[in-house]
C-alpha cells in the first residue's frame, strides 16, 4: 500500500486559491470551514512565498492521541480519518495539530464547537464508501475511485502534489536539483519526521 502524503512546492505556488475552492466545492464543506487554506509568508516583501496547507496526515498524528473519545482512525494508505458520530467538539485536536487542520462549525453562542471537520484526503469517512451518509458528513471519497485529492489534481502549476510519499518526494527532489533551489517541503519535518533537503 502507498503511504499518501501532500507536498506543497512553495516555489511554484501562485496563490490562486484554486485548491481551497476546489476542496470546498468537491466536498461541499460547510459554511465557515476551510479544509485547505493558503497562507502567504513575507507578503509584499522580497522572498514572499505562499503555501497551501491542510491536514498533512501525519505519522504518529497528535490529533488522534489527544482525542478524549478516541474518534480517529488511520487507513491502510495512512490517511487520518475521524468519526463525526463520536466527535464531541472539544477542540483538543486543534490545539495539538501542528497545521491548524481541524475546523469546527459554530453550533451555538460562545465557543461551542460542533463536530470537527478536516481534510479527509478526499477519502470520505468510516461509513461505507461513496454512500449518501458518507458524503453528507465527510464529502467526496475520490480515493476509493482511484483518484487523488482534487486540490492537488487541479493545481495549475503542479505546486501542490498528492500521492505516494516516495514518488512525490522524488518529483520534488528532481525539481530542486534542476532549478537549483527550493524552500523545503513545507511541514514534512513536523508531519513525517523527515525533511527533503532543498
Amino acid at each position: 500500500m502507498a503511504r499518501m502524503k501532500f507536498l506543497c512546492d512553495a516555489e511554484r505556488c501562485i496563490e490562486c486559491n484554486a485548491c481551497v475552492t476546489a476542496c470546498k466545492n468537491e466536498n461541499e464543506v460547510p459554511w465557515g470551514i476551510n479544509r485547505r487554506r493558503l497562507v502567504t509568508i513575507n507578503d509584499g516583501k522580497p522572498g514572499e512565498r505562499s503555501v497551501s496547507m491542510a491536514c498533512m496526515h501525519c505519522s504518529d498524528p497528535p490529533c488522534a492521541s489527544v482525542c478524549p473519545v478516541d474518534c480517529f482512525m488511520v487507513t491502510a494508505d495512512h490517511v487520518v480519518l475521524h468519526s463525526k458520530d463520536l466527535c464531541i467538539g472539544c477542540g483538543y485536536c486543534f490545539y495539538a495539530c501542528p497545521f491548524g487542520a481541524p475546523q469546527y462549525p459554530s453550533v451555538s453562542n460562545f465557543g461551542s464547537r460542533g463536530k470537527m471537520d478536516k481534510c479527509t484526503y478526499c477519502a470520505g469517512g468510516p461509513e461505507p464508501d461513496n454512500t449518501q451518509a458518507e458524503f453528507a458528513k465527510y464529502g467526496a471519497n475520490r480515493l476509493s475511485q482511484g483518484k487523488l485529492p482534487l486540490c492537488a489534481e487541479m493545481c495549475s502549476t503542479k505546486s501542490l502534489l498528492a500521492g505516494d510519499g516516495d514518488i512525490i518526494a522524488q518529483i520534488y527532489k528532481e525539481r530542486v536539483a534542476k532549478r537549483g533551489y527550493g524552500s523545503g517541503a513545507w511541514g514534512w519535518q513536523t508531519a513525517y519526521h523527515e525533511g527533503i533537503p532543498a
Partner: protein
Amino acid sequence: MSGPFLAPPKIARALLLCILLIAAGPLHAQPGSVPIDPQADVASERSLLQQMPRIEGRIDIQNPTAHVLEQPDGRVWRYFHEVLLHWTGAVVILGTILLLAVAYLVIGRLRISAGRSGIRVPRFDAFERFSHWLTAVSFLVLALTGLNVTFGKQLLLPVIGHDAFSTVSEAAKYVHNFFSFPFVAGLILVGTMWIRDNVPRAIDLVWFKEGGGFIPSKHPTAGRFNAGEKVVFWLALAFGAAVAVSGYLLLFPFYVTNIAGMQIVQVVHSLVAILFVALIIGHIYIGTLGMEGAFEAMGTGSVDLNWAKEHHGLWLEEKAAKGRAPRALPSGTPAE
C-alpha cells in the same frame, strides 16, 4: 589626546569601502559564474522554525486562527496532555487518597473527647449552607466531568464502549461548560461571606504547632475558622479563581489569546484543577469520615457544644458574649 592615533572617520570609511570592493571584485569580474538566486531573500521552512515557534503569514479567510501556517508545538502540548498530565493527575489524586487512608488507619476518626453534650450551637445559617452546597455540588460535577475528559479514555471507554462513552462525554462537555456559572457564583458568595473570619491571625501558628487538631489529646483553640479551614478557604479561592479565568478562556476559544495561549491556558486549567481536586478530597475527608461532629455544621447548620468548645473555643466564647450561645456548661471537659 587620542586624536592623532585614530584615522579621521572619512578616511576609515573610504578604506572600508575599498576593502569591500576588492573583496567583491571577482564576483563582478565574472558575471554568470554565480547563478542568480531567487531564493536569496527566502527563508526556508527550517530556518523560520529555528527563529520562531510558529510560522505565520497573511490569509484572506476571516478566521483568527487561520493565518498560522505551522505550529510544531502542538506535539509538545500533546506530550503534556498525554503523558505529563496523566502522571501528575494520577500521582497527586491517588497520593492524596492514600495519605488520607493512612491517616485514617493511624489516627482514626477524631472523636469529640468530652462526648456529646446534647446542646446545639448554631454555626452556619441557611444562606451560608446554600452557598456552600451550591459551590460543592457544582465542584463535584465539574470535577467528575473534567476528569472524564482526561482519564475517561483510559478508565470509562474500555468499560462502556466508544458509542456510549462518546454520548456521555458530549453531555459531560456541556454540563462542564454550564456548571461553571453556578460554581463561580457560589465561590463569590462563599468568598465574600467568610473572608472576614478567614483573615490569618497569630493564633493560627499555635494551631499548626499543636498538630492542627490531628493529635487527639490536644485541642488547639481557634476562632470561627481554624488555620486548617483558613488554608482550605484561601486555596479554594485561589484555585477557583485560576480555574474560572482559565476555564472561561477555554470556553471562549481564541477570543483573547492565540494558539500558544490556548495551550498554556489548558495546561494551567488542568494542573490547577488536579490540585483543587486533591484539596477538596482532603476537605471532604475531614468534614465527614475524619472527624466526629464536623459534618453536621454544614449539614444541619448546628454543632454540638462540646465539639465547638474543643475545636472553636474562641468562637464559642465570642458567641456566648453576644448571648447567642450557652455560656458555661455542665462542665463538659473535666480538668485534666
